[in-house]
């Protein structure tokens, strides 16, 4: 297969950046999107040009490192896929592909398609945990968890922190990311003691980082590589309101 690629090139945060057009030929239909970029980069290296920088690591859709807008869609064609899961057979031979980094103010571009997503880590540091010291845990089966709750918590916990929700949202909202963690812990008995502080702190940090609010656009769910449902955002809102209307312990 062959493709015309229009890729965003930007040397660093201060460089205004621009699209550069490349042609790639002889791409296997079974190759992944990232393997197609490998072929391009190999050619660029051979020509002595700087290859396109992009984050990637596990290449099996779980580490959350990769992520780019392909023809305006976060992680490209297909549903429930990270960029590394996307195969070239999903595109038409000869198609034009426009490749951009995540576009969101809290995710500044570092280089080319690489963005800085440390804002997500700071939200987690603010409250995305259950405070249990190593060694302080009770016997694992001491507290049963209804299977339905455990399963729903797992649905939420599947988040890979890639940022596609933010990139696809017109408001650059991180509500789905925050909701996934808040919801996971709100559903489990282990998460109850810190339920109130957790949601308040995470939302506060989310706002501080400059992420927008949710306006029920649902693009996040549509583009989430793990298919995380917006019902978790509803739970996040409920948790937040509940925290605001209850007294501090």
């Amino acid at each position, binding site marked *: 297969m062959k493709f015309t690629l229009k890729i965003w090139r930007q040397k*660093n945060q201060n460089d205004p950046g621009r699209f550069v057009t490349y042609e790639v030929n002889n*791409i*296997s239909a*079974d190759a992944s999107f*990232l*393997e197609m970029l*490998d*072929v391009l980069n*190999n050619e*660029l*290296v*051979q020509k*002595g040009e*700087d*290859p396109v*920088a992009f984050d*990637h*690591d*596990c*290449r*099996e*859709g*779980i*580490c959350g*490192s990769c992520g780019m807008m392909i023809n305006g869609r976060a992680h490209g064609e297909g549903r429930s896929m990270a960029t590394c*899961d996307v*195969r070239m*057979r999903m595109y038409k031979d000869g198609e034009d592909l426009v490749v951009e980094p995540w576009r969101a103010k809290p995710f500044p571009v*570092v*280089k080319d398609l690489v963005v800085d*997503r*440390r804002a*997500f*880590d700071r939200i*987690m*540091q603010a409250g995305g*945990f*259950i*405070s*249990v*010291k*190593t*060694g302080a*845990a*009770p*016997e*694992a089966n001491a*507290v*049963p968890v209804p*299977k339905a709750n*455990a*399963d729903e*918590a*797992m649905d939420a*916990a*599947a988040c890979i922190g890639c940022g596609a929700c933010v990139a696809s949202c017109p408001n650059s909202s991180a509500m789905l990311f925050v909701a996934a963690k808040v919801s*996971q812990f709100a559903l*489990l008995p*282990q*998460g109850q003691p810190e339920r109130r502080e957790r949601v308040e702190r995470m939302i506060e940090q989310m706002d501080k980082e400059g992420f927008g609010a949710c306006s029920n656009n649902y693009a996040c769910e549509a583009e989430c590589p793990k298919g995380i449902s917006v019902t978790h955002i509803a739970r996040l809102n409920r948790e937040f309101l509940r925290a605001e209307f209850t007294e501090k312990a």
Partner: protein
Amino acid sequence: MVLNSNIPDGPIEKKWSEHRFHMKLVNPSNRRKYTVIVVGTGLAGASAAASLGEMGYKVLAFSYHESPRRAHSIAAQGGINAPKNYANDGDSVYRLFYDTLKGGDYRAREANVYRLAEVSGSIIDQCVAQGVPFARDYSGYLDNRSFGGAQVSRTFYARGQTGQQLLLGAYAALSRQIGAKTVQFFDRREMLDLTVVDGQARGIVVRNLRTGAVESYVGDAVVLATGGYANTYYLSTMAKASNATAVWRAYKRGAAFANPCFTQIHPTCIPVGGDYQSKLTLMSESLRNDGRIWVPKKSGDTRSPSQIPEAERDYYLERLYPSFGNLVPRDVASRRAKEMCDKGFGVGPTKMAVYLDFADAIKRNSKAWIEEKYGNLFDMYHEITAEDPYSVPMRIYPAVHYTMGGLWVDYNLMTTIPGLFVVGEANFSDHGANRLGASALMQGLADGYFVLPYTLGNYLASTKFASVTVEHEGFRETRASVQERVDRLMSIKGKKPVSEIHRELGKVMWEYVGMGRTAAGLTKALKLIPEIREQFWKDAKVVGDPDTINNELEKAGRIADFLELGELIARDALHREESCGGHFREEHQTPEGEAKRNDKKFAYVAAWEYTGDARTPKLNKEPLKFEYVKPSERSYK
């Protein structure tokens, strides 16, 4: 070099508790005076950094990723073992110890393996308390499944994403400590060398991958949690960035490298498709609970699987190993798959694959039942191959997946360099010559949560430290050598992209140092690898600037180290004139084609000592004593 394993005296079930009692402690108010450097934030590194930070030590944690959550532990699918005996099927600490030691083909220390089994139950407790959503049954209690090499159900799991959930648990604990400022996290920093001062590991030199700056950090102890070296083979199930540079630099600074040839080939991976391929994808071992492995009875059979009647199929694992069936250990399953394909029974376009078939399980239970257990794995397979595994059997083939070898550590997880500790896959300690499924997560978290926090404290409390800053001569020297190496890589100006050279190394490793090894093949590899290395330093092409994100430069440095480590793997494999676990020397097999150990000559840990770039490394031996489990032929019949 002296190898003292420091295994405590006493009966095996009391060694760890007695040892803990006798260890020196650091008073809680004194802990903040000690700085501990942790390199790597996967399961072992994140759990260690979080636990040490919580205890009050000053922790500096490093990762080449932007976020600790990207570490490759996240990709582990199947599960984590613990002998909770919730299934009431006869499990116990002793049985897990026995299975793991036997699974490792009697090439691990009894005392270490026993401790691992002993603390594994606490890991499950810890993770449940952290909110890890393990699978539960309808009662609300925890569910278990079976893994290879065991006849009990002791594996805890979170769908096919157990590694992800455990890592996010450890990441959450670490994030809490970063927020509390007991741990300082340095992102996008790659450790490029170790600084040893007065014989003690006192710090590291890293390259800031954003800016290219060479930075030094001082500590009282250094913990490496940098994972395995399977990417030496180029194609593996490792993440693209997984590398051996940190452990290799430590080796060159005096840490012994143990059993490098003990590499694990995982039997159930998606077969290689084409030259463009950048990595191989694993299909979890848990699939062997319900999938049946087979090939056509007739060699070269080109019919589609649905057209091959039951009577013309060879379920070879069930035939050869009736009691373990499809759940034999990984090394056995891999070798048999290779044998079938070598004999011409392979299937699919390349003929280098066997079927993993779920038709019976779907008939027995239902499609929905399979979907709930393995849905994400089936989706992943479908995405990659464009075939629907619910209706067509999966095609699988072995791929390099894990490395049991690693830096030599004593019972306290300390290397031959005082103050340098190694945890998780990066050390050699617990899996012998073959790791059983669901044991890697167990070992990573055991080391990080429940072993290192004790043994590191003992070291700190019983050691005197000179005051050292980054201006110390040792740090200047390390920085200069790191800078010199970066400059050298940037100045090769050859013609070949480094990935191509890596691929050439991988081909040699897979061909001659892979699943079936011979003296002739290994000797050939020992000739070819230095040739590729020489070509690398003459003809590699590293483009871009050194002062910004530069993937090519990062790759080049890692490949340069693989080119040296690959030779050591081959050397170790050639010297070990026996077959054991993942190390299969074709000259040494039983008439049935099983691995034939030589306990008289090779019941030892091979710890290689660096003696200079131009010199052959020195082999040191740590004899293995078996007081509780008598080594026998590992039978899964």
